[in-house]
């Protein structure tokens, strides 16, 4: 058991966790995309990743939208059971700042020098990064702000540049859009694992409307993903194979897909908290320095 615990230290090669959560659609009727992103944000924060290591990009403000009958809230369950907006949400890129250019800049690190720390992805070669995208998509592209799109080739190239500069140790990519599987088809960098809510040619459907708010509150895949994550706590040992089973066709109507061929470790040994949480590796400090002897001034060389 002792060796096992020491083995846990070395099971994954990461020392810190980052999350980049992006909602790419605007307008009131795309309420569910903001709710999707905020649900994942909430889970990730609950499992331990601090705001300083989450880059949250929301393309529109639903909580303070004129059409929101309950201002300052974003609900994910009908009957307003769960307010995912909360009290301490920290949105790093808001409104029109969420563009393809900014998203690629965040990933590759090519930000202007004046960008503050909270808007940067300061990952290193021992960071595990979770990237979650949601919005309207199609075969090979994802639509941003209803005016531009990012293609799967650009995304794959961005990940390759991250790999070249060793900006991640392992990366989990989750996308909840129509034909989401097309977005991870072109990946070619190592240590990438991808999940999508639907295959090419299928649409991802939304879950349930709320009659009081008047829009659909969540997408199905993320709804069941949130349900799955609510059972995870920081020391749980659930592995990725369970995550692949989330939202089968019977619940989701679309067929979720995943891709693990580029990932070096066996998904069965990858813990959910390796990406969604921030379980620290800890070592006991065995040595101390004895400072009680008076410090003789060192002779100048």
């Amino acid at each position, binding site marked *: 058991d*002792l060796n096992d*615990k*020491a083995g846990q*230290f*070395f099971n994954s*090669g990461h*020392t*810190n966790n980052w999350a980049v959560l992006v909602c790419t659609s605007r307008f009131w009727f795309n309420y569910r995309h903001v709710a999707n992103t905020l649900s994942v944000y909430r889970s990730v924060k609950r499992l*331990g990743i*601090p*705001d*300083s290591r989450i880059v949250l990009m929301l393309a529109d403000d639903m909580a303070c939208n004129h059409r929101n009958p309950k201002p300052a809230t974003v609900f994910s369950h009908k009957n307003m059971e769960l307010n995912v907006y909360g009290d301490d949400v920290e949105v790093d890129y808001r409104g029109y700042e969420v563009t*393809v*250019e900014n998203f*690629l*800049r965040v990933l*590759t*690190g*090519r*930000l*202007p020098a004046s960008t*503050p*720390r*909270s808007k*940067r992805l*300061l990952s*290193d*070669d*021992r960071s595990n990064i979770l990237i979650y995208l949601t919005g309207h998509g199609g075969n090979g592209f994802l639509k941003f702000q209803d005016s531009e799109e990012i*293609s799967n*080739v*650009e995304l794959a*190239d961005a990940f390759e*540049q991250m790999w*070249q*500069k*060793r900006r991640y140790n392992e990366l989990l990519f989750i996308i909840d859009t129509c034909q989401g599987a097309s977005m991870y088809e072109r990946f070619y960098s190592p240590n990438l694992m991808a999940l999508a809510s639907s295959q090419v040619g299928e649409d991802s459907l939304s879950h349930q409307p709320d009659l009081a708010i008047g829009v659909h509150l969540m997408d199905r895949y993320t709804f069941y993903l949130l349900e799955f994550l609510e059972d995870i706590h920081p*020391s749980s040992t659930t592995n990725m194979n369970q995550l692949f089973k989330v939202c089968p066709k019977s619940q989701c109507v679309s067929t979720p897909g995943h891709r693990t061929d580029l990932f070096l470790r066996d998904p069965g040994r990858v813990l959910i908290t390796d990406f969604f949480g*921030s*379980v*620290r*590796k*800890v*070592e*006991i*400090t*065995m*040595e*101390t*320095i*004895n*400072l*009680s*002897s*008076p*410090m*003789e001034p*060192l*002779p100048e*060389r």
Partner: protein
Amino acid sequence: MATAEVERKRGQLAALSIAVVVVLVGVPLWWRTTETYRAWLPVNQINELAELQLQLSVDVEVVFSRGTLMPEQQKKVPFTRTQEEAQKVDDDTTLRYRYESKYRTANIMEEDALKQPTAAEADLSLHTLSASPCGSVVVYVIPETSVLLPQGVDVYIGHRRTAVLRMGAPMSVGKNHKQLLAHLEPRITQVVQVMSFSHTDITAALSDRVRLSPGSKESLADSMRSFKSSPGYEITFSLLNPDPKSHRLDWDIEGAVHSYIQPLLTKLAPLANFSIDSQILYYAMLGVNPRFDSSLEAYTLNADSLAHVINPVEARLGSNAASSNPVLNFLLYVPDAHHSPLYIHDHQKQPVASNAFHSPRWGGIMVYNVNDLYGRGETPLPVNININMEKVMGVFLAQLRLMLGVQSSPAPPGFLVEPCGGAGLADWELDRLMWSRTVENVATATTTITSLAQLLDQIGNIVINDNIASQVSSTVTSLQLAVAELEAGNLGFALQYSKEAILASERAFFDPSLLHLLYFPDDQKFAIYIPLFLPMCVPILLSLIKIASEARQRRKLKQSKKD
């Protein structure tokens, strides 16, 4: 007839001239206006650097004191020997280690210094006699019978760059020169490897270039623990007081940093800039409930729950928004009165002497118990407590050394290493760090610059501005200089050049203008150009074909007329 001929000729001339204008003026104009500006990059030199051949040279001076050499061996001294060792790491990387050893006898002052009662004092006086430059090692050889070193200790490594080596028994060493070298050389190599670098250290530093599977759990832990080379670091000391009603804490952090931490950081100045700040957080609890252990009458935190302590606190720590440098956090936690005293237990359920733990690439937390500083119940709350910064800084300094990569692999058997004490860092430890950081910087800068060149080559429509080209050129120059200085053995200059190389390469790679935003698949390109050029080209081509066929017809007519 004549007018039809003239008309036709005029038509032909018009078609031809249009074709000429399109080809000679139109095509070049279109080419120039649609090409992207790409400044020239020294691609050849970059490709040369992609194959990294590093040579690391160490100057070793071996000084024989009286009584170590046989008369026959004495005749050969002083002499110089060079040892070279080549190691191929992978297809693109080769390493060569070169140890240039100068052997000589000790002079009178050194002999006097070696007569001191203890090794530590000998070390001090030896240091005043000679100044060994950065990266070199001096080994003093003393006879087997000398009492300078305690029993069982064969090698003593001091604070500076000197070591004292005890020679083997004259019987086992032998009489002549060859036997002397056969006895000494492996031992001196071992000392030099401890004090400067070993092959494992250097390959670990190359991890950016070469993803080798780590040899052992220790080396994996080492590589995960220390921060990667960065031009600057931020250190934050935080005092956590969850119970201000009971404790009024007083810590002289400025004085403590000045006396205990600053000497270390000053010594590390060639490696990086450090900025220090401190804060006090009230009502900050640890996220874990400690268990009460009745046998110890204390609360305990066991090693498994430590992993969950950091996250709730981290959210409140804050950081300097202006810089993107890595942050090292050192937290001092004073447990609240209801959970005092609080001890940390390791995996074997034994209390930890330092009562502290650290997390790789993050920092450390120390638990400071104050309940013995006030009696039970009688003292009015809140109690004024003055924190013993010496004890606290002793722990933080040790953790800081680990985080920065002053790694402490256990010394080989028979070695006695002087603990660094107040200085925080021995000179040879600084050298070790400089060697591995220089190699790391060179490796990272070469991979950055080669991948940048590859990227720019692959994506044809990224604009390469002049400033990027100049950064790339300066990276290449600095890298070449750094490699040359490493070969020559000038560690200080090599580190400086490698730092410049890394700064320039990072600036070039992360320049905001190098964003490839527009991806044009070929079918989109055709879809744009065809509606513009096809309607224009079709009449021109058809008339050119008509002219050519008429010319051929006329020639046939002429041929038939001739015969």
